[in-house]
């Protein structure tokens, strides 16, 4: 009889221990981070912003061979391919023979954007590891935040390398090394972005923020922009407090930099079919995130 009670007690202890070790952290798990992707490349428009799928970490690309096509070495993400991958497009340079099973598209640095990437309505393979653990993009954001006293250009480098990468086909091709996916990818829709994100991404690239401004928390500058159907900027006018513009030299510097950014970005790429939506914009420039004190 006593032995039974020992066994029962031991089992109860072990089960409670197991429950606390594996179950308790569940209470303290943070809610999944609402993923606001940084769009670094212009991809086709869609109803919503659907970033490319997150990949497992790839090894560093090989140094580009001079005469050969600069082909970043990619580790094939272990994805079970539901549908056969699309045949390589005719204008792509033939790849050197590879032991890998699926042919990969070239990431050509030349402006071979003649062929607009067609959104492939193929179902993408299930993205593995939609882990809520550190998203590459999130960690990049965080490190940019930490660098506020020493503004570095990590984000810029990322933007630059992404620019060189041709917008590849969406679908099940693995992405070039510099394109980081995101956990909020919806595998059933093609990669896309809204017009708003498209305009935002372009302005991000053009805006040179005056550094070290005082009261950066309070420097929101509205700029009213009028655009032609082809995206050329007709006018970009400061639409904020004119008295403040005349008296606060920091506000004026920020406002001028914002206006310059819009003018330098002309012509903006935006879908002509939705011209009525974006022909008149108000852009609210807010350097708070970038300028720390």
């Amino acid at each position, binding site marked *: 009889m006593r032995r039974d009670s020992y066994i029962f007690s031991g089992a109860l202890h072990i089960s409670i221990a197991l429950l606390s070790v594996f179950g308790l952290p569940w209470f303290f798990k943070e809610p999944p981070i609402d993923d606001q992707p940084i769009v670094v490349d212009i991809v086709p428009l869609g109803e919503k912003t659907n970033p490319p799928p997150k990949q497992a970490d790839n090894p560093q690309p090989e140094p580009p061979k001079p005469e050969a096509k600069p082909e970043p070495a990619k580790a094939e993400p272990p994805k079970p391919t539901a549908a056969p991958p699309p045949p390589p497009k005719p204008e792509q340079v033939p790849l050197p023979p590879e032991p890998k099973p699926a042919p990969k598209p070239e990431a050509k640095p030349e402006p071979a954007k003649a062929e607009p990437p067609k959104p492939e309505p193929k179902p993408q393979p299930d993205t593995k590891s939609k882990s809520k653990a550190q998203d590459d993009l999130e960690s990049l954001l965080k490190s940019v935040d930490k660098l506020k*006293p020493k503004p570095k250009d990590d984000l810029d480098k990322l933007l630059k390398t992404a620019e060189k990468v041709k917008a590849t086909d969406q679908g099940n091709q693995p992405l070039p090394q510099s394109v980081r996916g995101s956990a909020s990818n919806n595998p059933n829709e093609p990669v896309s972005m809204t017009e708003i994100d498209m305009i935002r991404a372009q302005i991000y690239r053009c805006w*040179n923020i005056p550094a070290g*401004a005082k009261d950066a928390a309070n420097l929101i500058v509205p700029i009213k922009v009028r655009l032609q159907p082809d995206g050329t900027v007709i006018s970009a006018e400061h639409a904020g407090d004119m008295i403040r513009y005349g008296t606060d030299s920091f506000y004026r510097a920020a406002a001028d930099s914002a206006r310059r950014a819009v003018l330098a970005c002309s012509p903006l790429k935006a879908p002509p079919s939705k011209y009525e939506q974006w022909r008149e914009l108000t852009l609210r420039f807010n350097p708070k995130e970038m300028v720390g004190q």
Partner: protein
Amino acid sequence: MTAMHHLRLFFAAACLLLLAGTARAELVIDITRGHMKPLPIAVPEFNAAQPAQAQVARDIAKVVAADLERSGLFKPIDSRAFIQTASSLQTGVRFPDWKQINAEALVQGQVEATPDGRLRVEFRLWDVFAEVQMAGQAYTASSQGWRRISHLIADTIYKRMTGEDGYFDTQIVYIAEDGPKSNRRKRLAIMDQDGENHRFLTDGSDLVLTPRFSPTAREITYMSYYRGVPRVYIFQIDTARRELLGDFPGMTFAPRFSPDGNKVIFSMAVDGTSNIYEMDLPTRRKQRLTDSPFIDTSPSYSPDGSKVVFNSDRGGNQQIYVMNADGSGVQRISFGDGRYATPVWSPRGDLIAFTKMKGGEFYIGVMHVDGSGERLLANGFLVEGPTWAPNGRVLSYWRETPSDERGRGNSSRLYTIDLTGVNERQAVTPVDGSDPAWSPLIP
């Protein structure tokens, strides 16, 4: 009116309202990111009205571009990339040419000689993409004053583009050192902040220490030893006349001026303790501000003159304290590991710079006036003695590198660094230097 009628009316009204609601609202997009890069600016040669001014016109543009580049916030575009030539600017700015080389701003200037032999310089600052003039000024000076005009132009451009006051029309006074370590010759020296117009103010026969500027930037105090006794001099820069403020046995640092220029504050060591004193310059009356058995030293006024920051070891080790200008309300503001010394209040009033010693390394850092937000900007074997540029944005200090195992290579040079911690640059001096002090903007 029947209830049905009311209902239909209401329904119709609701439909109308809904339709009105679907009218397009203007699109508002938040832009929260960008990049921070030095602003590309084009500074072509200034135009000379007469050929005799051609060299000055070129030199002025060069000094302006060098000032802007040294600040780390601007990137002057190489003149070989210019599409429109400097001389054709007089007939009109061809903005597409400058847009093409990605110049966000353009400086256009003209130099001419006035009938009485002076120099007249005018310049315009153009916003290339908006195609509007942002600033324009004209200056007249003697022909030797062209450097000051260049610095004033650079200050105007800097202020217009960044919103901050400029700091280019300033001077730096420091202790120039040469000779072997065992027999160092120390001379007082002064130069423009870009290293030009350098001259020695003393001959090195006496040991000189810790020069400071007065708020008018035309006087310097410094300490010298005369027969072993520390004495304080006031040196007039324009007339090179020197006046003795007094002998102060036990003084270790030269006094600092108050912001209104009427008082000086200093510390004196007496019988093993060191306290802070204030002296009224017109009456030469001394008033003791701290009265502790500890070592209180290195005081510095706040820019409004109401508070004083100093370092003291009354808390156990050397830390930074703030008190009212009359000596009351002493409060400790630094609590970190290590020793804190030489605190200086920023001319903007928002930060205090200091030297920190920790773990065998030296650091230059800043913190808010309540002690929070401590940030270390520079470090090294020995970095010490921060001094603020008048816009509170740039610091200067000196850095000593140790000698190697053969006893050679020891050097002591002046450096400047931006408040964000980037753009650390060595200041150009003819010989080694230490103990810099940055002047206010020259009136």
